[in-house]
């Protein structure tokens, strides 16, 4: 029996977030006095909106009707050596999907429109302050969270979900400590046209000493670029001429400038060893496509850093998405972790609702926090470690990572584990 408890209404309020209008999700019970909402989602980008839609699924269908690109293979290699690792499923099934931000937002917004009786969206609003309930039940003060909007509206809710991005206002107001450090890198994103149409179903990533460059397929002729590099270089890339930009990209993928003989020979030695041990293994090295054109006005950059909130929950507050954690894009897991948060929180909330519990009660929120922190912390730690490991050209470390990469490539079960963890 599925746990079905319907929240009467959710309200989503836009706040200042990276992507799109913020959405606040409130659920209103009609009655005398001030309305009390079941849940408020503060901030809506992809994660906030998805949380609001979590009551009803079907957003994926909207995405399918728009644009998405399945990819079958992922090739990751090093600029300082010949080592590479490939991920693919046994029968070359779709490994995953690349979907543009805008497409996701659009699909989710469409889905929200379908549940207007339960979800109310307040566009273009900003939260001024939050008032938390006291720790003890008091006749005078309300036990609900009070949210004050810029237009003077006061909203009460039983549970406030903070989905308002890395500079989360909810997190700050709740006084939750955030462990963070900047990476001194910026990511440059752009939409590129390939030089020739191809069965574009491979995701490419190359680790340069300055940072990883990745090419993700969007369609048979277009790919998305994510290039993490130093602040200065990123600013340069964004402002340079299109031709020079394309040259830079192509050479980043093809150039052998960072190779050293020592590492090359060490790498081929290890490769030889693995071929001896497992002659049947290893897929062939493929060559990444070259790019011919940049979509006009699609170049942008944003700073990178790492962030993790020490607590995800407080009584009547829960953090999801970037408000709770921020990660380097080298593994492409940022928003995926957010979606994972949503599915876990929805599961716990619906079980709690089916047990008639108060939604803001810490007991089930703490379970959500434990579950997600276990998963997220390991992923963030691994990504941070990879980033540090690959940002250097020191020979011992390069040797270590070359051999490590080759070893991981040679062990299919390990790769499957990695893929499974990343797709949770």
């Amino acid at each position, binding site marked *: 029996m599925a746990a*079905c*408890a*319907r929240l*009467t209404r959710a309200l989503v309020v836009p706040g200042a977030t990276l992507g799109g209008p913020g959405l606040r999700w409130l659920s209103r*019970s*009609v*009655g*005398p*006095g001030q309305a*009390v909402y079941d849940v408020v989602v503060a901030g809506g980008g992809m994660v906030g909106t998805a949380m609001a839609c979590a009551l009803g699924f079907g957003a994926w269908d909207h995405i399918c009707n728009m644009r998405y690109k399945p990819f079958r293979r992922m090739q990751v290699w090093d600029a300082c050596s010949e080592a590479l690792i490939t991920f693919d499923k046994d029968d070359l099934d779709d490994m995953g999907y690349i979907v543009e931000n805008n497409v996701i937002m659009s699909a989710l917004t469409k889905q929200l429109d379908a549940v207007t009786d339960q979800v109310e969206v307040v566009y273009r609003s900003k939260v001024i*302050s*939050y*008032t*938390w*309930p*006291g*720790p*003890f*039940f*008091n*006749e005078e*003060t*309300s*036990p*609900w969270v009070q949210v004050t909007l810029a237009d003077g509206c006061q909203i009460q809710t039983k549970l406030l979900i903070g989905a308002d991005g890395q500079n989360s206002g909810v997190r700050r107001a*709740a*006084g939750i400590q955030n462990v963070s450090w900047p990476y001194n890198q910026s990511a440059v994103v752009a939409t590129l046209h390939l030089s020739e149409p191809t069965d574009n179903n491979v995701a490419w990533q190359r680790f340069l000493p300055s940072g990883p460059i990745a090419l993700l397929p969007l369609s048979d002729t277009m790919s998305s670029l994510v290039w993490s590099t130093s602040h200065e270089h990123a600013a340069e890339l964004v402002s340079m001429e299109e031709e020079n930009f394309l040259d830079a990209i192509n050479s980043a993928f093809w150039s052998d400038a960072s190779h050293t003989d020592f590492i090359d020979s060490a790498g081929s030695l290890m490769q030889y060893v693995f071929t001896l041990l497992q002659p049947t293994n290893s897929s062939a090295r493929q060559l990444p496509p070259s790019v011919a054109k940049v979509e006009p006005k699609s170049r942008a950059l944003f700073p990178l850093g790492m962030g993790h909130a020490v*607590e995800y*929950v*407080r*009584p009547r507050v829960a953090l999801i998405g970037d408000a709770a954690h921020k990660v380097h894009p080298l593994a492409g897991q940022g928003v995926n972790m957010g979606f994972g948060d949503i599915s876990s929180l929805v599961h716990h909330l619906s079980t709690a*609702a*089916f*047990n*008639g*519990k*108060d939604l803001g*009660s*810490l*007991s089930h929120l*703490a379970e959500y926090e434990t579950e997600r922190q276990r998963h997220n912390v390991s992923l963030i730690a691994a990504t941070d470690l990879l980033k540090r490991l690959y940002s250097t050209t020191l020979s011992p470390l390069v040797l270590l990572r070359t051999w490590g990469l080759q070893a991981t490539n040679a062990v299919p079960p390990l790769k499957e584990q990695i893929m499974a963890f990343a797709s949770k």
Partner: protein
Amino acid sequence: MKQVLVCWRDRKGQGTRAQAMWGSWGLRAVRARGWGPAGVRSAHRGTEPRRATAPEGKQSNRILLMTPWLFSDKGIIYFKYNNITFAYSDKMKNYRYAGMRLYSSSATVDPKEMKTFKALAYKWWDEQGAYAPLHSMNDLRVPFIRDNLLKMVTNHQLGSPLSGMKILDVGCGGGLLCEPLGRLGALVTGIDPLNENIKTAQQHKSFDPVLDKRIQYKACSLEDIVEETAETFDAVVASEVVEHVNDLETFIQCCCQVLKPGGSLFITTINKTQLSYALGIIFAEQIAGIVPKGTHTWEKFVSPEELESFLESNGLLVQTITGMLYNPFSGYWRWTENTSLNYAAHAIKSSAQVETEEHHTKVPGIDGQEASQK
């Protein structure tokens, strides 16, 4: 009897906030977010604990300034680590009957069991506080009630599984069980002899418009409403109550009278075994000092067999008896086969129509002698 006063300050040291707790740290209380005990000091029994006031808008940060000094009545300083044990919950139930003497005399309510609950009435709703085990017992009791009631109906509304049902919660205390049942759609009547408890319960539900309409509270005992509510309830819940009543037979008779034919009676209580004596009386009251001495009377604990015989002799067919176990470290309850400590029972009032489709999934209570190793 010792009352423990817990004080703490928020990070800026802006004043102290105090709460009288019955040594209710446990590990759950310590995990309380945003606020926490800073010091522990015991006060004498007569002291009214200082009422906690929430600072405006600021969440205090969790600082545990442990000053583990306790003054006993004799002025001796010693450290006390108070743990929540199995028997904690029934101690709380005791408190619900505090002040009975002031209200009325009744065959079932024991006036001796009541005094200090008045001071504790407002602490019902602190989930990490003194009543934490009761709050977490909801994780067992609510699904127990909900699922057994759903078995009786053929279809239910999605989102409100108990809608249309009328439930009576006898000895509701602060309304801990009434509110979840109300959220699931039932129309709940909660009765408790203690005025303060009813007031707390009413105030708490008044903030939620939906619950305000679905739940009603009354300060009275069961006998007082038997005549006017005969055969009106789909279910009666007597959770952690029967071990405190004077006359169990009369109590069950009254429950049966207010039930509709085919209605359900849900009881959770403590078994009368050597184990419950060891843990519930000796450990909780005398060793750990959590439960004030004399709160419990082991003689009034009810064994499942005894309960079953009372139920059956009053026309209630027992459907299920299952044991419950509390883990003081995690703060969670769980179901167990062993009924030698806490257990839950479900019985149905027989009627002409309801045939004896007896799902006798009873687990026989374990004799006191055999239970000692558990």
